[in-house]
């Protein structure tokens, strides 16, 4: 009897099953943060994907260099102002001023209406309009260029009536020449690879440092550490240094792969990029350390890292064009260090930017570091209280 029972596999017990179910529910309720994250992360994704992300970006910043004084030049200007794809933010007076705006990334397009445009148009010479586009991110520009092409023809339609009707011929009254500056072949990975450097750095650095301090808490070694005559700054900086080195290994690895495998051009100074990478690495480490002072255990630190990673990857302009997002999403994006590092990395690698052009992107990162480190030092406990 006994031997038969022992040989049989035990039957599924509903009581035992419920015991496990209840235990899991109780444990779930105790870990509020994990529970909050499982609700918060999908909510965040929904909002970001639903409202912020736009694969057909409109309202791209543009500047106009209007050298023509005639009425048709102004007609064009008005119609460009009314185009939903473009936001006319500046009128420039010289070629060099236009160049500067493009280099710094202040505008996506410069529209060049040449001298004697009206004159040439009315003579039937089919004057050309030069559209200089920052095509670093091909996805951001292609739709706008298409829209501008149709706009030019329809805008002049009203003016070209009666005796001038013949000018609106089969080819259109003007010739739109698009000059794609930076990445003229519209190769997507030229844009992706420098961005990836920032993304990879942020993902690993934030999570790894987040773990470094919570691990001490979880394993009880924090008590030993606190019982020693140390200062918080010694522990924090001591923990950061090894990860900075690790970050540089990642940078070198990604750049090598980008250059040798993907043949991404390196237009600017590598040394400048290395120097700026340090500032970005410190920013991501500061976030990680802040998280570790907030998280109770390693799992929570990872979750926080992910929670920060999500908006960074979606709102920084890495995956989707930054200027395509609504204003509020752009403001959130401007806060994130990744947004600025992406602009810097793309600027140096693709546009050949120097220090002068990247400084406007540098100080927001520094500001972010100061904020994150203040929180971290304030939150770091000298005692077990």
């Amino acid at each position: 009897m006994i031997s038969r029972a022992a040989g049989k596999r035990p039957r599924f017990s509903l009581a035992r099953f419920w015991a496990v179910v209840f235990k899991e529910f109780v444990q779930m309720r105790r870990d509020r943060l994990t529970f909050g994250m499982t609700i918060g992360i999908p909510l965040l994704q929904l909002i970001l994907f639903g409202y912020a992300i736009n694969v057909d970006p409109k309202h791209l910043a543009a500047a106009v260099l209007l050298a023509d004084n005639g009425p048709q030049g102004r007609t064009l200007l008005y119609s460009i102002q009314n185009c939903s794809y473009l936001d006319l933010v500046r009128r420039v007076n010289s070629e060099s001023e236009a160049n500067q705006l493009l280099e710094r990334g202040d505008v996506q397009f410069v529209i060049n209406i040449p001298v004697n445009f009206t004159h040439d148009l009315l003579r039937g010479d089919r004057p050309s309009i030069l559209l200089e586009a920052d095509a670093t991110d091909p996805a951001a520009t292609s739709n706008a260029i298409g829209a501008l092409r149709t706009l030019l023809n329809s805008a002049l339609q009203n003016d070209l009536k009666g005796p001038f009707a013949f000018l609106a011929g089969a080819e259109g009254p003007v010739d739109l020449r698009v000059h794609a500056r930076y990445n003229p072949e519209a190769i997507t990975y030229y844009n992706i690879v420098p961005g990836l450097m920032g993304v990879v750095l942020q993902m690993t650095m934030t999570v790894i440092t987040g773990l470094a301090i919570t691990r001490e808490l979880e394993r009880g070694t924090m008590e030993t550490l606190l019982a020693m005559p140390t200062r918080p700054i010694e522990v924090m900086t001591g923990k950061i240094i090894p990860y900075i080195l690790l970050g540089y290994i990642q940078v070198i690895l990604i750049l090598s792969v980008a250059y040798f495998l993907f043949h991404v051009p390196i237009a600017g100074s590598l040394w400048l990029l290395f120097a700026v990478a340090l500032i970005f690495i410190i920013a991501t480490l500061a976030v990680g350390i802040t998280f570790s002072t907030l998280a109770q255990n390693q799992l929570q630190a990872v979750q926080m890292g992910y929670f920060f990673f999500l908006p960074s990857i979606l709102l920084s302009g890495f995956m989707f064009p930054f200027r395509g997002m609504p204003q509020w999403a752009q403001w959130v994006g401007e806060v994130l260090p990744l947004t600025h590092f992406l602009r810097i990395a793309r600027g140096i690698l693709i546009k050949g930017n120097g220090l002068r052009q990247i400084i406007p992107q540098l100080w927001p990162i520094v500001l972010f570091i100061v904020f994150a480190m203040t929180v971290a030092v304030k939150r770091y406990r000298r005692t077990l209280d």
Partner: protein
Amino acid sequence: MTDDFVIDVAAMTKQFDGHKVVDNVDLQVHAGEICGFLGPNGSGKTTFIRMLCGLLRPDAGSGTCLGYDVINESEAIKRNVGYMTQRFSLYEDLTISENLDFVARMYSVRDRRRAVRDSLDRLGLSQRSRQLAGELSGGWKQRLALAACLIHQPKLLLLDEPTAGVDPQARREFWDQIHELAGQGLTFLISTHYMDEAERCHRLAYILNGVLLAHGTTGEIISETKLTTWEARGPDLLEIAKKLRINEGVEQAVHFGNLLHVSGADSQALEKAIEPYRTGLHRWRQIAPGLEDVFIHLMKNSKEKTSQ
């Protein structure tokens, strides 16, 4: 003449969420003394020790530890105190010698390599110096933890239940070492649950619900409580114990193997209670109460006081 005191604190108090975990505790420990710190789980032993070494900020209280102010000079205290946590809290993913080396660096120990080598030799860890700390058994982990808190040559050691989960042989060796170190002038405050360890201490402090109930040598504490204990030998002790426990004069009736220990504070009432069982069947004799009897007596008394 407080110069002789290594620990001299008064009115130490710590609250967590309005609950007094340590309540107005005074404690003095002389240099070279081994002070046993006793009390049930959750009575505030760990909290008190953590306040002494600056890991927790006391809500009230004052005094000195090694001559330094416990409130304002915790950095200086930390430098001269060795603290061994209840739970093993060295790095399990570092080897024994790496752990010792790290600790030595953190305390800026002079001639670090030699200090690490000496401490390995002294504790018999040399053979295992390259083993990961996480792979060690309980007894070896405890040796390592002790070596780590000795490496900066502290003058005071605070050991929080150092022998929990360690086998008797290792425990005995551990205590021999403690006595040797105390002989060299080190002072110890050791929390423990083991009565045999309590008896190995010079002086004892008994804390319950955050309140210090007794302080003195084993003999002093036993005689102060004025407990009377009778020992019985014979048949049906289980039944007799049950009946005796209901009696007013009997506080405790505890089995020790084949013997029964019956204790009470009022010796006359106690004798009256055991009178019916003093037949030819049983052999009764009065004995000195043990430490455990005394502590359980203190605990019950305090409960009655608080419930009144």
